């Protein structure tokens, strides 16, 4: 499964293992973490809503595009759904390739596309008690 959605903690080791390959000299990993602040608000928890039927289809398309554009050997992406605490991994992208140029470019491409194309929404719960839907344009607390 190149792209998947998980409602439990992302298995970072398994994601990395899925791209381990003796013909590759370069691994690039991106992890989006739940960080403790966003636009001056202190974040306590974060909730991801995912519409799986479309997210899984589009996510797989994004990975396929990365293979085609950058010629990398292996790539996987796992995205969380549900309620996440500070420091948890919201999304992971692992890419391996014979050379590092392609691995960096493909990893960057995948996370950029995942952030803007998939039906995934996040609601930040602030220490103040308020909670708010955050959109990509407003530079959200996870994944940077």
């Amino acid at each position, binding site marked *: 499964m190149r792209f998947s959605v998980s409602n439990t903690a992302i298995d970072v080791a398994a994601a990395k293992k899925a791209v381990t390959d003796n013909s590759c000299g370069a691994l690039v990993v991106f992890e*989006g973490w739940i960080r403790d602040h966003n636009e001056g608000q202190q974040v306590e928890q974060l909730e991801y809503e995912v519409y799986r039927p479309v997210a899984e289809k589009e996510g797989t398309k994004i990975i396929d595009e990365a293979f085609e554009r950058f010629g990398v050997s292996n790539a996987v992406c796992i995205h969380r759904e549900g309620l996440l605490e500070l420091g948890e991994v919201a999304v992971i992208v692992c890419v391996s390739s014979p050379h590092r140029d392609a691995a960096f470019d493909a990893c960057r491409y995948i996370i950029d596309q995942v*952030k803007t194309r*998939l039906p995934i929404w996040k609601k930040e719960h602030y220490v103040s008690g308020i909670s708010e839907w955050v*959109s990509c344009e407003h530079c959200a607390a996870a994944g940077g």
Partner: protein
Amino acid sequence: MKTKVRYFALFREQTGCESETIDWPGGSAAELFQMMAEKHSNLTTEAAALVAINDEMSGWETVLIDADEVLFFPPVAGG
């Protein structure tokens, strides 16, 4: 014709509705959204909103056909 409409995240909260089936003369996804925004006064028109038809990402200008299921996605924020 009949069209099933589904709302997600912010849109669901704004309309207070997960899904509804409407009977209308037909038109594009954009026209349908406008109609729904008139019905649900809290529903905001967001430039970055996305639309899917029958679980496929689609364009706002796509003309709907009978029995289509239309998904209104507020601005997304994966990652």
